[in-house]
């Protein structure tokens, strides 16, 4: 079971992710980027599930910070934005994978397994 930090401003979205992860992974929710970075500084996680469109510190900014402060920690971007350019941009910023909303359990778990499976 992996410990995952779920960063999304939408309580509904966090609840959906938590339900889809079920007993397979442990989800620690965070409603904004600043809180997420503070949690990452004080606890260890296996991966981060990160929304892109958030008020305050947005997803790309959080992603950049994680890449600098926690190199090697995989970040899976979860977004409703289906633009190919968005996918290319966040992968360029260092995301390990992009999973589009609305989430399906099989897609989400496969995305996490693929990313965690690549870890040394």
């Amino acid at each position: 079971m992996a410990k995952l930090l779920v960063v999304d401003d939408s309580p509904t979205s966090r609840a959906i992710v938590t339900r889809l992860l079920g007993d397979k992974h442990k989800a620690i929710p965070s409603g904004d980027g600043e809180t997420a970075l503070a949690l990452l500084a004080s606890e260890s996680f296996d991966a981060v599930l990160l929304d892109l469109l958030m008020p305050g510190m947005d997803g790309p900014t959080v992603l950049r910070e994680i890449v600098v402060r926690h190199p090697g920690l995989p970040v899976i971007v979860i977004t409703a934005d289906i633009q190919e350019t968005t996918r290319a941009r966040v992968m360029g910023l260092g995301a390990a994978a992009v999973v589009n909303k609305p989430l399906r359990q099989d897609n989400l778990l496969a995305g996490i397994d693929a990313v965690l499976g690549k870890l040394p």
Partner: protein
Amino acid sequence: MSLSEFNLEPIAEIVGIGIGKAAEVLNTMLNSHVRLTAPSLELVRPEDLEGALFLRGVEKLSAVEMGFSGDFEGSAELVFASADAGKLVDCITNDIPMPDGDLDSIRAGTLCEVGNIVINALLGNIVNVLHSELTYTVPLYTEGSLANVLRVVRDGAELIIVVRARFEVENFSIDGDLLIFLSLSTFARLETAIRRFVDG
């Protein structure tokens, strides 16, 4: 230029693909087959907007608005009758343990997420087809009379693409209006880009 001089057929074609994608994402969100019936598209000026809506005459509406910029600038709004919006929220949240919070904020948050996903499905497909790019603002939820929910976005828009769509879910149907608010110059750029794409 009269609005009737615009050839909306190419735009309707591209928007239709996006609406199909929106039905598909609702299907996944609701875990239920969603059938899309008779979407229609109309181009109106702000002063004629209310008369063009599926939802004219509905007393209480729920709306999610997202601004966009980049290759095209404007905003998009998804409008439902509040009663239908309630059914959507119930469908999505009925088997999800929701965090503590007042029902209004859970409802607003859930509808914001629906609007975010549906608007992204619609616009994302259009810009992917056109090899364009947009940046979105955080979705904003409003509730109230038609004048109330439209006030947020109508100021400054010169043209509105009105997409009337009926999403039929297993045991209920939801009528919605998807509105894309644009300036004249942005609409002209969008129309040109779509025509170029369609003409090859």
